């Protein structure tokens, strides 16, 4: 597939960003959404990017998630230089290494809860039936949705949907889970519950969790907080020590 083989040294980090910039052209105007952002994220971290809208959070998450490419700078995700991946390689890479949680949940309406979680194992990786069932059930239990496994997305609440989404994101054992404003469409109580679930998953699976939010109350749940403003990284805060599982 032509993926760049990761060097031993850089395996330590989940994400290494070096002077990453991203430009957009909106009509005739060129916008620099990210300006030479550099950082490193260690595995199993629970990281939050915070900033007002337009600060570049979503752009950065898209770059880390290999949904987009930086205009300048270098970016290594899970040990791989993601700049030179083509469309098919990016998709493969994402499928193997990254899990996504979306603001709008984005569950597939025609599939049940079980099937939604099963989807990546079936359509992205090719895991045999027995193994799939095992993993899905395990995650259903982990997010507390085992009772609803045969329900359709339109039959469950927002919080439940997001929990399903978390399970889906984790079912492929990704190195990294990205969540862009995961609680924006939830009430506060549910939001906290969702973040609890995410943390629990991080503990259990040692997956790196990176999420973005502009909600000050939620951001406090993160262990490392990066602040973004106008496309620039303006601050980093660490909370306590990292919890190792």
């Amino acid at each position, binding site marked *: 597939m032509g993926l760049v083989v990761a060097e031993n040294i850089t395996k330590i980090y989940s994400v290494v960003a070096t002077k990453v910039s991203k430009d957009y052209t909106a009509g005739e105007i060129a916008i620099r959404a990210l300006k030479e952002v550099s950082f490193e994220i260690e595995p199993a971290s629970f990281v939050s990017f915070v900033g007002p809208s337009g600060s570049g959070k979503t752009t950065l998450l*898209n770059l880390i*998630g290999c*949904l*987009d490419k930086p205009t300048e700078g270098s970016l290594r995700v899970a040990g791989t230089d993601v700049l030179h991946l083509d*469309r*098919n390689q990016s*998709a*493969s*890479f*994402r*499928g*193997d290494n*990254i*899990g*996504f949680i*979306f603001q*709008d949940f*984005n569950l*597939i*309406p*025609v*599939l049940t809860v079980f099937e939604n979680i099963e*989807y*990546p194992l*079936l*359509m*992205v990786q090719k895991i045999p039936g027995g193994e799939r069932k095992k993993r899905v059930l395990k995650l259903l239990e982990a997010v507390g949705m085992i009772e609803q496994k045969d329900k359709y997305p339109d039959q469950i609440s927002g919080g439940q949907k997001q929990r399903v989404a978390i399970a*889906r*994101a984790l079912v*492929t054992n990704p190195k990294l889970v990205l969540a862009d404003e995961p609680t924006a469409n939830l009430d506060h109580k549910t939001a906290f519950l969702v973040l609890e679930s995410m943390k629990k998953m991080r503990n259990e699976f040692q997956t790196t969790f990176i999420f973005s939010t502009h909600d000050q109350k939620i951001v406090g749940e993160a262990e490392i907080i990066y602040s973004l403003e106008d496309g620039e990284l303006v601050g980093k805060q660490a909370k306590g020590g990292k919890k190792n599982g």
Partner: protein
Amino acid sequence: MGNLFKIAIRNLSRYKRRTLLTASLITIGVVFVLVFISISGSFKNMMIAQVTDASLGHLQVHRKGYMAAIDSLPLNMNLRLQAYKKLENLLKSQPEIEAFSPRIKFGGMFSTFVETTSIRLNGVYPDQEFKTVPLLPSRIIKGEKSLNKGEIMIPELLSIGMGVKPGDIIVIVTTNKDSSVNGKKFKVSGVLESAQGLGGRDGYVHIEDAMEVLRMEEMEISEVAIHLKDFSKEAAFTEKLEGLLEKEVNQKGKPIYEVHPWEKISPFYNIARMIDVMTISIKIMLIAVVLISIMNVMIMAVYERIREIGTIAAIGTLPRKILAMFMMEGFSLGALGVIIGNIIGLGIILILNLSGLSFDFGRQKGLILKATIAPVDVLIVSGIVILISVLASLQPALKASRMEPIKALRHV
């Protein structure tokens, strides 16, 4: 594959009414095509059989130039005995030929002693002729289904017009090749219903009687009609026979024989061709219906699920998998329409057959329609619909597979 199918079906069921409407449209199209093919095909085949098996034969051989002059039934353009014998030996050795019949064609006067009119006649060996033109006996509406020496089968029009019936004695007067005139009495053995096209209003006499009244010292033949074992191989055999006969030339180096397949002799061939053209047109219409309706539905489906497409692309679904998903949907829709269409279409054909519809063709009345369709035709129609369904969904599916996940995710 099964999972793609499962997802496709689930997605189609999402908008039941739209799916049903589209599938119904395809179903209706398929039904129309199948029923049309069965009716028109049967009609065409019956008519071709009427034309070929009732008077013409599958193909004919003449002396070169005869057909161009056939209206005047020229006696100086017959095949001489030697030329005929050569032809006869050649034809006898062809495995594709079921039967053939030499004919002396001539014109003359038909007289009841009181009234005289003109008549076109074929002098034939009755058993050979009946084998070559199997529907000829069924055209005999009055009298005996046989023809002996001294007897004549007359066309219906003459029977009505001249008031002649089986058993009556009439006279045939004809001008011979040397311009002398001769006459002979005949007993009317039967009355023939007209057949379509050339030769449909001819009378028949025994070939030896024809030779006698034409004062032929040695037999000369105007035309040889041929009946093949397998009619569907007619075109191939005509070519073969033409190839074999083209080598036979006279002293001047000119070819002796000419071969005419029934298509070149009967104007009905143009009608048969028209039916074929109509069948193709209706198939094209079906293709258009399927193409447009499925493409329409798939474009809508893709548009409605842009965000979903973005999601599955983001979580790692390869573009070709997304392509396959949507094409499977289009395929399923087409397949649904085809399966139901086949069931209904074949059901209607069965009912038509059982109801025994009858129709008239020219002067022949009360022919029973037997609507049949070859399994291969059903497969071809179904195959075309499914192929077009898949192709129709190609463009929308490609669009879906090429979407940028980010852009798609932003979509409302």
